């Protein structure tokens, strides 16, 4: 036990002495958290549109004024030819071009069908779908209003199904409340993972590992001594990040904080264990870095922060059993935002506990006292 404490003390001294690393470890995650949380807004707020109005009539201008007054659309320019249209989309000035055909007003007056054309930049498929839906909605609204006001027909009773939506746990659909826990998980995991990954291999490269190897320090003591400091740092950063999220972004903490920290305490062993494992397997820092880079990026992308896990293909969902982030990502949101209790998170807790034990065991196998 005393040996272990000395080892932990040694690691802390090393960390504290590294004057470049220290601020990086503590300041960079916080800065990233505060800035990046704002980036994740999928609501289209400024769809840039251009108009090719071949009719130039009262009716077409009326329709366009609907787009003009919509908070989602930003007017770009009037176009006067098909070449203009193409250029507007090619150059990216417009996300959508609305083309109103000649005779638009006349057809409307005569109750004939009219065709309005939307040309949409489809490269970002998700955005293209939303853009089209918004544009169609405005057109529909204009068309429905026509009956009563402009065409001066008899008042038509609006018939149909009204759809009301209620959003629980986050009624204003504030995406920051969602992103803070998500990014926090990424940052804390990456910090722990990268730091442990770099640690042992560095001792190998510098040669100090041989000095440890000839001491009576046991294998588990050595590994625990490496884990403990980074585990503490990660826990501390999570606590600090939560506090910051609460103060700056008003992230609610509905569930039990104790439960969250219990889960984190078990969870953190997984990324730290992976770091150790990679570190033991590599000969130099370059190798460990590329391994870390590859798995880190893959795990982040598959964590469910960017795309819902259930929409991924089946095989990817199986791969996610190997992804520690995928265990934690739902849990932190469940506890913080929904107030889920111990039983709700138990399956994930058991999963990540098994995961951590296995990874740590593998790491201890991979680390040998011989060089």
């Amino acid at each position: 036990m005393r040996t272990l404490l000395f080892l932990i003390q040694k690691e802390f001294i090393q960390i504290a002495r590294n004057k470049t690393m220290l601020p990086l470890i503590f300041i960079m995650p916080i800065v990233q958290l505060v800035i990046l949380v704002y980036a994740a807004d999928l609501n289209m707020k400024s769809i840039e549109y251009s108009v090719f109005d071949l009719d130039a009539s009262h009716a077409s201008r009326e329709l366009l004024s609907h787009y003009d007054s919509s908070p989602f659309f930003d007017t770009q320019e009037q176009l006067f030819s098909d070449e203009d249209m193409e250029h507007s989309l090619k150059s990216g000035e417009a996300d959508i071009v609305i083309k109103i055909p000649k005779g638009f007003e006349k057809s409307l007056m005569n109750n004939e069908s009219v065709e309005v054309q939307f040309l949409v930049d489809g490269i970002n498929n998700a955005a293209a779908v939303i853009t089209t839906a918004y544009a169609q909605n405005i057109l529909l609204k204009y068309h429905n209003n026509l009956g009563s006001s402009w065409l001066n027909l008899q008042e038509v009773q609006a018939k149909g199904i009204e759809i009301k939506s209620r959003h629980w746990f986050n009624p204003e659909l504030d995406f920051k409340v969602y992103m803070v826990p998500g990014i926090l998980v990424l940052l804390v995991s990456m910090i722990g993972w990268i730091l442990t990954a770099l640690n042992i291999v560095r001792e190998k490269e510098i040669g100090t590992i041989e000095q440890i190897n000839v001491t009576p320090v046991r294998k588990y003591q050595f590994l625990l001594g490496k884990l403990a400091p980074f585990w503490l740092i990660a826990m501390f950063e999570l606590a600090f990040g939560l506090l910051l999220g609460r103060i700056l972004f008003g992230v609610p903490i509905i569930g039990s904080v104790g439960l969250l920290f219990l889960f984190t305490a078990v969870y953190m062993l997984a990324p730290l264990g992976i770091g150790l494992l990679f570190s033991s397997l590599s000969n130099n820092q370059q190798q460990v870095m590329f391994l870390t880079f590859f798995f880190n990026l893959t795990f982040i992308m598959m964590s469910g922060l960017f795309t819902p896990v259930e929409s991924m293909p089946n095989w990817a969902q199986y791969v996610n059993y190997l992804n520690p982030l995928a265990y934690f990502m739902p849990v932190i949101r469940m506890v913080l935002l929904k107030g889920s209790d111990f039983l709700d998170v138990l399956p994930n807790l058991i999963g990540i506990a098994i995961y951590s034990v296995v990874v740590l065991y593998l790491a201890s196998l991979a680390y040998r006292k011989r060089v």
Partner: protein
Amino acid sequence: MRSFTSFVIKEFHHIFRDRKTLIVLFGIPVVQILIFGYVITNNFKDIGIAVMDQSNDIHSKGIQSKVFSSGYFIYKGAIRSEKEIESKFQRGDIRAVLVFPSKFTSDIEGSGSSEIQIITDASDPNLANTVVNYLSGIVRQYQVQKLGNGLQKSMMVVETRMLFNESLKGAYMFVPGTMALILLLICALLTSISVAREKELGTMEVLLVSPLRPAQIILGKVMPYVGLGFINAIVILLMGTLVFQLPISGSLILLMAELLLYIVLSLSLGIFISTMAPNQQVAMFISLFALMLPAVLLSGFIYPIENMPLVLQWLSYIIPPRWFIIIVKDIMLKGNGLEYIWDETLILTGMTVIFIIASIRKFKIRLEG
């Protein structure tokens, strides 16, 4: 010049001697493109929702069958009271509940109107929003098909054409994004380590006392990796076109030139990082930890830049992938020529020059104690 050539040859030896790194280096783009291609496609499907149907009649069932045959949603059981919803949300079983009022069909056929409620688990607000949009779309469609819109007047036909990506494939978005991301990170990692490593192992002093000038050392460090980076880029490009069927509508030569520019930019960014970092640990920490998330989030790869607050939009200007993604999309998908992307190209060139000059100036000829 001769000493310079032998220096470059030495760098090549360093690279090829480390087999493990080489394998990882070329494995990364292949595996990552495949994984992201099939996983991160922004396709919305298989979302679990439950139904609370208080009328259980023709139209409520009709709408349900439309909803669950759409492929977007999976039926996760019936719910009888609102109390059950909360615990289902808390366990994370379902993302939304579709609520039909009692007497749904008779209301629609009688008074002509009724109301459907969608209750979402908005702890993921973006998804909640999408769920509402898709569900509303399905209900509207049902309404038009089965009930008519109740208005006797001219038809408004909307013809929508998706340009550059007619079948709305997710790959069109993410292949350029992944390419920008992987190239930047790999190249920056490679060079940032390379200089810091010489410092740490003490071989830097040998280089410093050699007749090589700082500019030559930096150039010699960058050159071998240009080849590696370029091969990587070609692999990604081939995967994109062969596996995910991306077109190359524009000029291939222009695309290659831009790729080369971007690789040199990323490599010089790595060199720049390494001139500031005292050892490999710091160099890697910066090029991995500080670069990865901003490059993912601020490049427009996943979240549209136009939606971000202004400060973040300004910040995104200094993120190289932001510009490179535009260039790749323009050339490959829109078939644009240089006249459309000269400004982005100029920005990337400017960044490269700044990084190189800054590195040469920061490059210390002496090692301090």
